[in-house]
């Protein structure tokens, strides 16, 4: 990978030849409750600024927070799905810091008494030698609230440095968040970036299966902070870590980890030390740059939140929630593999393309799984790669893809035209039917027009016509090609072949 940064990098291969990376992830998931964590304000995304706020989430004097029961249930279900123990006694705490994204000047979070502790998530990591099972330890999952959105005004970059002042929308302040923290992850060094990606992918799938969040990384309803440290091979104690914040796609998680390994290795190799700091990830070139130094910022002076009561879940409640857990994604994938008759490798490429759910939804609409996989992992995945986006972030839906498949089965589109329809849908030209009409993309199904083109092609290539007559059916390919060319690709190749053989047969008869 090339990255434009002023900081020196080792190649990934050189980095892992000397150092063992240790990773940790903090993933914030915005719950899809109707209301905020501690007040009845709606959580709907995209409302006009400061229209979803009240005395509680504005931190006005005398306002008293009350916990959203549904949010606690979601937290417990996430904990259970991650194999965690649910705390018999759990409390909220104030995390004090001085920053205007929280009007209270503290964030209500959980500190030493989180709702869920000590679990594990089984993942499968694609490697050159095939899929490798890895278990990622989960340290804890705790409840907290999201912060407001700050807009920096003035300066050239829209970033805080050089800004003249800042504007704040508190609609998001108080939206329920679950933070899921892993234990340190130490794997075969070469696999670290792939493990990072597989963990976030698996976790996201679990969250979506639980139905507790839409977990859209590009919209920020799932946000990943990636901790990376290196230690010289053979050393036991952990090195100094950096925390790369808000990595906003599954692909970026992998890139950010890889970059930090390369960067830190260069620093350590040069005999310098790693600074404990937050770093910012840049989508454009996959690099990270220094943010704030962590030391002081971590002095949050946590103390138990006096305005909220402890959460002491009864075991009957926990068991009731356990009964609502979905089939674990790993098991579900094994079942789907069987249903669709695909290999683990094919399943992995579906997951890597971020397309499993989309294919499933397309199949649920009535499409054949092979057709659905072909389009989502073919043309659509190709475009998403080109644009550096997750497939799910592209403006094309399972409904669109299902319709395109139906149109190809009906014979009114061939693959080439279907690709143009996809292009049109992605360009915002409407649904597939609208794109077919506006771009005039239906295949030439008029046999008369096709026969005319076939006759012309046969006349131009009499030697080929002769071969076909002589029984060399595969020679018809050259005529099919000529007809496809003369119709501008708007013919159904299978139908053209049929007509050629009929035509030559007729002339024989």
């Amino acid at each position, binding site marked *: 990978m090339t990255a434009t940064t002023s900081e020196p990098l080792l190649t990934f291969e050189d980095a892992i030849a000397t150092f063992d990376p240790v990773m940790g992830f903090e993933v914030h998931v915005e719950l899809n409750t109707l209301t905020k964590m501690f007040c009845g304000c709606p959580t709907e995304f995209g409302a006009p600024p400061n229209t979803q706020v009240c005395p509680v989430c504005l931190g006005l004097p005398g306002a008293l927070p009350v916990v959203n029961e549904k949010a606690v249930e979601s937290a417990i279900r996430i904990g259970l799905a991650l194999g965690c123990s649910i705390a018999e006694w759990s409390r909220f705490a104030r995390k004090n810091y001085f920053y205007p994204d929280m009007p209270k000047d503290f964030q209500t979070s959980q500190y030493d008494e989180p709702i869920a502790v000590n679990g594990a998530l089984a993942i499968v990591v694609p490697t050159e030698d095939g899929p490798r099972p890895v278990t990622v330890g989960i340290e804890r999952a705790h409840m907290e609230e999201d912060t407001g959105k700050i807009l920096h005004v003035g300066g050239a970059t829209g970033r805080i440095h050089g800004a003249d002042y800042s504007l704040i929308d508190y609609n998001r302040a108080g939206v329920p968040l679950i933070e899921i923290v892993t234990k340190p992850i130490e794997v075969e060094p070469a696999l670290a970036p792939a493990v990072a990606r597989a963990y976030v992918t698996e976790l996201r799938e679990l969250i979506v299966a639980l139905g507790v969040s839409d977990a859209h990384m590009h919209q920020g309803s799932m946000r990943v902070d990636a901790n990376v440290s290196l230690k010289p091979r053979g050393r036991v104690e952990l090195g100094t870590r950096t925390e790369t914040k808000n990595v906003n796609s599954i692909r970026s998680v992998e890139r950010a980890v890889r970059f930090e390994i390369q960067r830190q290795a260069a620093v350590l190799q040069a005999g310098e030390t790693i600074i404990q700091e937050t770093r910012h990830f840049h989508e454009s070139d996959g690099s990270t740059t220094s943010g*704030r130094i962590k030391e002081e910022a971590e002095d949050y002076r946590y103390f138990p939140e006096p305005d909220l009561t402890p959460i002491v879940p009864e075991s009957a409640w926990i068991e009731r929630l356990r009964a609502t857990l979905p089939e674990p994604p790993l098991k579900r994938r094994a079942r789907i593999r069987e249903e669709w008759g695909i290999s683990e490798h094919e399943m992995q490429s579906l997951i890597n393309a971020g397309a499993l759910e989309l294919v499933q939804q397309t199949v649920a609409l009535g499409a054949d799984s092979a057709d659905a996989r072909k389009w989502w992992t073919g043309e659509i995945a190709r475009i998403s790669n080109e644009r550096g986006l997750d497939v799910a972030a592209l403006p094309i839906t399972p409904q669109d893809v299902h319709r395109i498949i139906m149109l190809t089965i009906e014979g009114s589109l061939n693959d080439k035209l279907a690709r143009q329809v996809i292009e049109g849908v992605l360009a915002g030209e409407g649904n597939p039917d609208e794109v077919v009409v506006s771009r005039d993309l239906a295949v030439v199904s008029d046999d008369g027009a096709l026969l005319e083109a076939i006759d012309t092609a046969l006349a131009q290539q009499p030697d080929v016509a002769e071969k076909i007559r002589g029984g060399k059916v595969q020679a018809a390919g050259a005529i099919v090609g000529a007809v496809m060319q003369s119709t501008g690709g708007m013919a159904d190749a299978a139908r053209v072949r049929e007509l050629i053989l009929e035509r030559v047969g007729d002339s024989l008869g």
Partner: protein
Amino acid sequence: MPALDRDDVAHLARLSRLQLSDAELDHFGEQLDVILSAVARVAEVAADDVPPTTHAVPVVNVTRPDVIVACLPREDVLAGAPAAEDDRFRVPRILDEEEQ
């Protein structure tokens, strides 16, 4: 109970973004000492059989259903803001810390 030294007070002031002179640091340090020693006296009274608590009454699991309640009208919300612009709270520029 060890007294707070000036560095502790300076650190707390920095976390609260307060700029204090040396004289003020000493002054507030003395005041904080008084508060801390008062709390320490309470701690002396609490024997081992008195568990620490953050609530006067033993109440747990007070929750509310996930039901939307009316918000404040935006005029009222922003009426309390020191400054507003584009329907948002306007704050002076924030230095030395990065955005979330």
